[in-house]
């Protein structure tokens, strides 16, 4: 799906837990998430922590959309 979106010229970032799979399949912009069942907020942490993590990682995804890249790139997250 990512590739078809990108092929059409729409800039796309994939937020995925399985980064090696995303890479193999051919995503170009990638941002890691924390797990499969809850990619952007661990229910074992407080609502506030979950929100911080989600806000931060979506922010990185937005940064990636503004970044020119020359090869497949995994963008680094801080939390």
């Amino acid at each position, binding site marked *: *799906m*990512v*590739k*078809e*979106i*990108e*092929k*059409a*010229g*729409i*800039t*796309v*970032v*994939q*937020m*995925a*837990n*399985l980064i090696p799979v*995303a890479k*193999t*399949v*051919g995503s*170009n*912009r990638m941002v890691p*998430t924390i797990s*499969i*069942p*809850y*990619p*952007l*907020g*661990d*229910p074992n942490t407080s609502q506030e922590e*979950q*929100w911080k993590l*989600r*806000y931060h*990682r*979506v*922010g990185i*995804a*937005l940064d990636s*959309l*503004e*970044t*020119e*890249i*020359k*090869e*497949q790139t995994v963008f680094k997250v801080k939390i």
Partner: protein
Amino acid sequence: MKKAILYLNQFFGQVGGEEVADHAPEIREGLVGPAMALDKALGNDVQVTHTIICGDNFMGSRQEEAVDTILGFLNGLEFDIFFAGPAFRAGRYGAACGHICKAVKEKFGVPVVTSMNDENPGVQMFRSEMYIFEGGKSAAAMRKDVGKMAKFGVKLLFGEELLSASEEGYYGRGIRHQKWLNPEVPAVDRVIDMLLKKVRGEEFISELPMPELDLVPIAPAIKDLSKAKIAIATTGGIVPLDNPDRIQSASATRWGKYEVSKLDSLSGGVYKTIHAGFDPAAADANPNVIVPLDALRAYEKEGRIGSIHDYFYTTVGTGTTQAEAARMGIEMVEDMKAAGVDAVILTST
């Protein structure tokens, strides 16, 4: 008695060579050229009743007209299976076989079988949509290639057990089937065997081969995100509670788009995940962990992004073949383009 019809180009249809490649489609009763070999290979219970002949250039440059004419010929004829080729390495012929097989399959719902060499561009164009047998480089392989098509055709027609693509000899279509092994070796034993082979540096064959890496050109960065319209898409199966489009929980072939223009976040109890590949508890309680509408809405309010697209796009990514995923992606992208979406955040689980 089952009935078959064969499609040939002008050369194999014995009309002539390159000088008559503009030959308009025609249908003849009975057997022309390779139709004789096919008829023989199909045995006593299947008969080739007609041969269709069309020039490669006619099909190449006036494809719609050619296909419509041929479908017209077939209308009213009784047939149980449709063959085309073999096309060997002939590119135009391979594409022609693919186009006509696709059209016949769609209109009449009969199985279609063709054959091409792996260098034939028709293979990549059509392999996901039909049975294309691995064929030789040139007409020297005619008998062998026709034989493979016929053998499989008979199996299809009489409901015999079909083996995997590589065992049967056609190019994998990207479709997975459940299959019972004989002897039955549990997955846990197979994986340990595979691991031991890997450790010993021996060759092993993966049961889930990854397609070769096929990169698409990198889309340019968005110059000014504060003016951009962003859409969210997901393979995490987030849907409205009643799953109105009945997207499957695994091996999905359907996708949906749902309006969120008036929402600041996705509420549990209103949205849920139907993804069968993980424990849904966290996502059901807070769907934003998969479709982060709340965070993106915050960025919209800050002016970091221009707007969020009125809809998010969703399907389920477990067991879904790459061929289906690509098709759904193509369908989504049409909708995104029509809506003026500049960029997409796609979350996968």
